[in-house]
């Protein structure tokens, strides 16, 4: 019997993780999410489920990077060239995918490399796209990102920050769009990632297993029901799924209209100064997250409640800026800054 993806709305608990994922698919410019926590806490289930929740999008037919025909600023070389020559780009409907990057991935597979087959057959150089190409406009899921080779993490986060993958290797020189929602997971007990890399993640959440026995039982029940009869299980959650899908779409449409008051901006600025965060990514992510939260709630103005909630997602991993520093978020400072 065919089994489908576990419905997002059927995941018990883990509200912060779910919220962080939802916010990122509404507003991919938030910069992804890092999920810290032990094994078996529905991390990868949630990531696959969120992709399944999203409605189809338009993509240029035959394009290796699934360019968005309505987004001229981020077309690949090929699509941009065709548009320039006045060619209409035929499009089709595709679904957002979860592209996985295994820990053993080598750099050439990540960024792309020389197409060996083509070179041997035709004596010509051709670029063979890698995982970053597949990830364009999709979700890139890196399980145990802290175990990934450092140089792979470097190129990964570089591409994530730029939205572009630039390749200069093995005889090929190529550049293509690589805009994706980066979701990384890690178990902090197995080694950390560098604070500078942490800062590149927009949001972070810490997940733990449910402790409430009743909740644990519910997790098991649902899992068994899902495995026994997926179709029936999916039916139970269909309306909830559709509702959430619609809410995400509504939020996406509302997002550009959401405003922030000057008072709110200076509140965030003061908070960042008080916490002494590195650079400006914290403030920027904080305000963007608040705006996205407002959009999700259907409001056209972000407020201090949104900031408070956003702080939980955007700040904790930025508190530990240097190696070896204890990184606790001072909530009294946050509250004090938000009181004014």
């Amino acid at each position, binding site marked *: 019997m065919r089994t489908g993806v576990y419905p997002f709305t059927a995941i018990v608990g883990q509200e912060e993780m779910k919220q962080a994922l939802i916010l990122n698919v509404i507003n991919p410019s938030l910069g992804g999410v890092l999920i810290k926590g032990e094994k078996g806490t529905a991390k990868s289930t949630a990531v696959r489920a969120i992709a399944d929740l999203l409605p189809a999008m338009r993509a240029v037919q035959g394009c290796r990077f699934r360019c968005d025909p309505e987004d001229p600023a981020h077309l690949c070389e090929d699509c941009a060239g065709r548009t320039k020559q006045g060619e209409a780009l035929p499009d089709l409907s595709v679904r957002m995918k979860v592209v996985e990057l295994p820990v053993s991935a080598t750099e050439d597979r990540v960024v792309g490399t020389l197409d060996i087959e083509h070179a041997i057959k035709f004596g010509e150089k051709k670029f063979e796209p890698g995982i970053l190409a597949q990830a364009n406009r999709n979700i890139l899921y890196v399980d145990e990102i802290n175990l990934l080779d*450092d140089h792979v993490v470097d190129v990964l986060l570089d591409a994530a920050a730029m939205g572009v993958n630039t390749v200069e290797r093995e*005889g090929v020189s190529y550049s293509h769009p690589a805009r994706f929602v980066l979701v990384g997971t890690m178990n902090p007990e197995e080694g950390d990632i560098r604070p500078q890399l942490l800062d590149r993640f927009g949001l972070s959440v810490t997940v733990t297993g449910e402790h409430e026995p009743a909740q644990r039982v519910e997790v098991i029940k649902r899992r068994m029901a899902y495995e026994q009869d997926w179709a029936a299980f999916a039916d139970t959650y269909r309306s909830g799924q559709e509702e959430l899908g619609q809410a995400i779409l509504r939020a996406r449409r509302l997002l550009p209209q959401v405003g922030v008051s000057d008072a709110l901006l200076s509140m965030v600025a003061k908070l960042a*100064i008080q916490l002494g965060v590195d650079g400006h990514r914290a403030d920027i992510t904080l305000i963007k997250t608040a705006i996205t939260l407002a959009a999700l709630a259907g409001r056209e103005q972000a407020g201090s409640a949104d900031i408070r909630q956003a702080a939980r997602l955007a700040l904790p991993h930025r508190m530990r800026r240097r190696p070896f520093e204890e990184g606790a978020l001072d909530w009294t400072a946050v509250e004090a800054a938000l009181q004014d």
Partner: protein
Amino acid sequence: MGKGTAFPFAAVVGQPDVKEALLIVLTNPHAGGVLIAGESGTAKSVLVRAMAELSADGGIVELPLNATEDMVFGHIDLEQAVTSGKKAFSPGILARADGRLLYVDEINLLRREVLNGILDAADRGVNLVEREGISFRHESRFTMVGTMNPAEGVLTPATLDRFGLFVMAGRETDAEARAEIMRRVLAYDRDPLAFAVLWREDTRQLAERVAQARALVEKTAVDAPMMQLAAQYCSRANCAGHRAELYLLEAAKAIAGLAGRDYLLPTDMERAACFVLPHRTRQMQSPLPPPPPEQSDPDDSPNPSDQPDSTEQPPPPQNAPTESEPSSDDADDGENRDDSQQPPQSDPSDDQDRTAEIDRNFSPVNLDASLPQDRFIRRGSGKRSLTRTDLKQGRYVRSFLPSGDVTDLAFDATLRAAAPYQSSRGGDCAINILKSDLRQKVREKRIGNTFLFVVDASGSMGARERMRAVKGAIYSLLQDAYQKRDQVGMIAFRRNSAEVLLPVTRSIDLAQKCLQQLPTGGKTPLAEGLDSALGQIRTLRQKDKAVQSVLLLVTDGRANIGLDGGADGVADALRLAEKIGESGVTCVVIDTETDFIKLGVARDIAARMGAAYYTLKELSDNTILRIAKNAV
């Protein structure tokens, strides 16, 4: 992609120093490029990428970290070789950068060999290629722009010296400015094109100012008094070599040009010195605690008296700890290490457990573990990084002609090697490859060595806050290890036994926590500690033969308990030291014995182990711990 939609230079809030430095190098390519250091999220890359629209000649060429050597310097043209059998040159990034700006983000993560090659080309203005059977040279006049986060690693003083200008990017500390940053980023995110239109006029004016300044620089004459002034600045800053003077004059010309003048004023030189001198000033004093100070725009309004008095120098670059002398902050702790002047005071019978703080002001210590006997297998690898040709891991950096079997084929290099001979070979495919064409990949893995710290935590170490300094030294070594992606493990010995506090791990954070919580107290079971270390090293070797492990023993050598509680602590310790020496592992002994009457056991142990020997005092004076393996 997205060309013309970069965040506009003029729209960046604050960072006046970084902006000025970038305008200087845009205006005068002879100013030697610029290195920007700063914590993450301070618009370093944003500003550099935005320079493209201000430059008249073709903008910026970016060198990604994943670049292989052939792509940087150029290589044989595959298509031409196949079709015509001719060995033609296919230009690399340096050729593309000719007459433009070359931008390397995270330049401190770039391989040293590649970086040196690039800087050589920048110096000469010519790229010389001798590879893959081709010999080629082409003009390559470019301005180097690098950005780096000092927390990620350092550049050597020699490399720093190649950059004309140096500038620190800091964070904004003014709430209104921070709010404005958010406002602009939000507006840009919403509609990059509309945002660019909003700033088009400012951008145009800025570009015009640069163009005019360029023209003025051409006409600016430097008279003798100015040259003398430049020489004075540099000699008072104690700069090595004569690059500094030239860069100083060129930067000053750019500053004058940007101010609309075609003649130099002493103030131009003063301002130029703020950028040209900080990274090449060799000074006696440099406050250098590990955390970078809060700093936004210290040089916004330069005070003439700031320069170049050596005590009032702009802060030395945070990224050059190898260059710096011990920090002045250490003076307070000096007494802890200058115990030699004090009457003997050790307290081996001290049975109380105490937990010393980590002395975080301990001067940074770098581990130099480039073991000379390994050079030949490590050729082509970066700082303390291992090239392992038997494992197909790590970054592919170059290729070579293997003497034996090929285990990790470099397809691109193999194809290029085979290409020129295709017309004579025939065959079914477009390319017919013979065994002699096969090339092996050289990979670099950034993960470094394994450092096993064996720490004496006995009561005698706790005396006179000695442990605070010891922890400071280890902490400093851990920081260096962190930057170089080393693995660490930690064993502590005290009372009657040795304990593996931390099995070898990549998580240096955990090591730091162990260090923090490590109490001192009780006897000194040095032999137990060494025995445990030997066991760890054997396990490590079984796991991974290729791994380079270094044992760092920190002790005062006052062994007063033997193996299994035996009486002869020193004899047992010496015997085990000899065993460790025989095992061939690289060792370092840091002797913390500072009492007036020295027993010198640690020195004997070091001799038996064939270890490099340092006293804690030396370690606080020397910033580099050279782990050279002495002959046993």
